[in-house]
Each structure stands twice: as structure tokens, then as C-alpha cells.
């Protein structure tokens, strides 16, 4: 029992079906507004399901990223490590600067107030090198002729005298410490009674005396000079290099000379030269 197939009817049906579909597609394209309650209902029902699935997927992807994208994560890790290094460096630099600033403030508040120093312009500097040669006890500071530093400018720290500038480059200056035997300072010992005794303080660090690398200070005095251990030694201001009344050190020991004419006062400097990081250069030579 065969069915009769109406080919024309089917063709017409298919044609109109196609036409209506094409018209429908045309009318309901992107950006068109047409009532779609079924779609709206579907969306409202399915969206609560879709959201947690997507969130779960995102979570899984984030947590298993290292498996799927090992190379990417590795590259990212390397880049981040590099960045951490860089930032750590930056951070250290900043911290150093903050600390330096704090030290300068401390320096500025001053352990000693000196009316002679007030007259001169001072420039703060950081120690960038110590003892570049073994022959002299020197420091290199990060200020030079560009900042108005000149040779023979005295250099002082928070507690007292450090030395004097011996050579200047445009951006750095080399400071000969008072510990070095080459540098001599006209000084005065102020006893507890207030009397002053003049003399010359010199470093004990001598060229070639490699066995005693730590220099110290000594001062030759006459036997009758009234100097005792514990007395403060200050600059005398004679000689034109150092300003007056800058603390140098404290007398720790007095030894009589075998000849009986002289005695030597050993002086402990107030400044700890080993941990020195900041100093003021007093523009005396340049200011003249």
C-alpha cells in the first residue's frame, strides 16, 4: 500500500518554510528587539545554573593553571622573581636613603654646638669608600668640587672631628682622617677645671706600620702640663685648617717620656671611624 507523494506540495512547503525562516532570521538579527518570552524564561532559569558552573570552572582553571600552562606559569614566575629582586633592590635603596636622612637629621641636631662652625656653610656627604690605598687612612665622600668642596676643607661628624679634604674630584672628595700620621691638628686639652693646654694631636697610623692597622691619636705635652685621663681634647683653631672648639677625643692614658721632659697623652677619638657613614664638609677653604 504505497502512499502517493505530492512532490509539488512538498516543494512549495519547503520553499515557504525556507522563505519564512530567512525572513525570520532577517527580522530577528543582532540588535533587533522582538518579544521572546520563551528565551527570557530559559535565560532566567538557566542563568542561576550557569553562574556557579562558570565560577567553578574559573576556580578550577586558576588552581590547575600550573598543570595546563606549565610553561606560562614558569615564565610568569621568572618574571615575577625578577621583579621581586628589582623591587627588593629599590626598597633597600629607599630604606638606605631614609636611614641616611635620619642620620643626617641626627647629625644636624648635633651632639655639639659650635659657634665657629655656624659661620661656615656645610655640605652633607656620605661615605662611599674607605681606605682606597693602604698608605693612608682616608675616606671617600660623595661630594666634590661641583658641590663647592675644596682641598683642606675640614670634615666633621656627629660627635667630632673626622679629618680634612686632601683631594677633590668633581663629584667626590678624599678625606684624610685625623688618625693618619700625616694629619696633625692643633688642639687644646680642656681639663675638668676648664684650663686649656695647647698642643699638637697627631695620628699614630704611620706608613709602613702595617702591624698596627688601627690608628689612634696621641698628643705630646710638657711634663708639667696639667692633663689628666678623661680630659676632653678640642681643636684649637690655630693653623687655619680646622675651626675652633670641635671635639676630637678624650684622653685615656698618659705616659711619661723616658727623658722625663715630655709626656704623651693617648687620645681616643670621639668618632667611630669604622662605622662612619655620613659627614659634614665645612666649606672653610673654599669660603676664604
Amino acid at each position: 500500500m504505497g502512499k502517493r507523494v505530492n512532490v509539488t506540495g512538498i516543494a512549495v512547503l519547503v520553499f515557504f518554510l525556507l522563505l519564512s525562516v530567512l525572513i525570520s532570521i532577517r527580522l530577528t538579527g543582532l540588535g533587533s528587539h522582538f518579544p521572546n518570552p520563551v528565551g527570557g524564561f530559559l535565560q532566567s532559569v538557566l542563568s542561576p545554573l550557569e553562574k556557579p558552573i562558570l565560577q567553578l570552572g574559573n576556580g578550577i582553571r586558576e588552581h590547575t593553571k600550573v598543570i595546563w600552562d606549565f610553561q606560562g606559569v614558569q615564565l610568569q614566575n621568572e618574571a615575577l622573581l625578577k621583579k621581586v629582586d628589582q623591587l627588593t633592590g629599590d626598597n633597600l635603596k629607599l630604606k638606605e636613603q631614609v636611614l641616611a636622612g635620619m642620620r643626617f637629621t641626627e647629625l644636624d641636631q648635633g651632639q655639639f654646638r659650635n659657634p665657629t662652625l655656624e659661620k661656615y656653610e656645610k655640605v652633607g656627604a656620605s661615605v662611599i669608600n674607605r681606605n682606597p690605598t693602604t698608605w693612608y687612612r682616608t675616606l671617600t665622600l660623595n661630594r666634590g668640587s661641583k658641590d663647592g668642596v675644596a682641598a683642606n676643607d675640614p670634615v666633621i661628624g656627629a660627635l667630632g672631628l673626622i679629618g680634612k679634604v686632601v683631594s677633590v674630584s668633581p663629584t667626590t672628595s678624599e678625606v684624610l682622617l685625623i688618625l693618619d700620621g700625616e694629619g696633625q691638628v692643633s688642639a687644646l686639652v680642656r681639663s675638668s677645671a676648664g684650663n686649656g693646654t695647647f698642643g699638637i694631636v697627631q695620628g699614630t697610623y704611620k706608613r709602613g706600620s702595617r702591624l698596627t692597622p688601627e690608628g689612634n691619636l696621641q698628643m705630646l705635652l710638657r711634663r708639667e702640663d696639667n692633663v689628666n685621663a678623661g680630659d676632653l681634647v678640642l681643636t684649637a683653631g690655630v693653623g687655619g685648617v680646622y675651626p675652633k672648639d670641635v671635639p676630637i677625643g678624650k684622653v685615656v692614658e698618659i705616659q711619661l717620656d723616658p727623658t722625663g721632659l715630655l709626656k704623651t697623652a693617648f687620645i681616643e677619638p670621639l668618632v667611630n671611624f669604622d662605622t662612619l657613614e655620613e659627614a659634614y664638609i665645612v666649606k672653610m677653604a673654599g669660603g676664604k
Partner: protein
Amino acid sequence: MRYVLIAVMFLLSLILPGTVFHFWSWSGIKPDLLMLLTIYIAMHHRLSSSVFWGLGAGLLEDLYLGRYIGMYTLTLAVVAFLSYWLAERWYRENFLLTTFMVFLVTAVGQILVAFLSLGAGLQWPLGDIARLVIGVSFYNAVMVPITYPLIHRSFLHGWLRYRPRYER
């Protein structure tokens, strides 16, 4: 139970491509699950029911997407017809053959979608169309070994089996 399961599968086919397969997409290419489901259904039904399922599934997707109403309706109807026609001639127990069939039918369906889109005024370069058609067809074919054995068995012996009224 059968209709509930089919409805759930339809809904999953609508949800999964945008969610789960969003993460498993392969340079933007996702499987067309609804097309895959339509092929499976058409393979296990008579011609008229196949085409009706195709029309229904297509209309559902069109309404869900909310644009170009009729595009998927027509496409999935054609896909259903083609699947039925091929399943009649090819041995549907052969999973390898089914995989190839899915690839072929999906390709035809995607080409139809592309042509209808061009007809609707979208301007896609031919290279993109070719890439998408081959990509989606391949992805759908890859889904067959994972999904088909289960669904095929269910259609034959399980919950998806069609039981005439007198049997119920």
C-alpha cells in the same frame, strides 16, 4: 522519565558550551552539543519524529540565544533529516562509523549555519568559516567516543528507550 532526561540533556547542551567548554575551548572552538544531541536522537527515531525533534531543538536554541530565530531551527531539522538518512544506511552500532557520520553531519550543519549567517548579512571571511566548520566538526567527532556508547545503550535498553503506549 525519557522526556525528562531528554529535556535535561537539551538544557545541558545549552548550558555547557558557554560554561564548561568555555574552559575546554580550543582556540575559541567549542563543540555544538545540541547538534550532537540532535544527531543522536535522529539516529534512534523515525523520520518524522527525527525532524520534529530537530525543529524543536533548533527553535529552543534560537529562542535561548534570542537572535536569528529560525537559523538553528532550519539547520537542526536538516541535520536531523540527514542523520536519519545516513543512520538508515550506515551501521549505527559501529562507533567509528558513527564518529565519521557525526563529523560529516556537523560539518554540513555548520556550513548551513554559516550560509544562513551570510544570508543574514554577517560578513565572515571564508577562511574563518572553514576553520570554524572543521574545528566544530572535529570537536563534535571527538565527543562521540565519550558520549555515544552511553546514549546508544540508553536508547536501546535504558531510560531513553521509546516505549509505545501499549507497553507502558
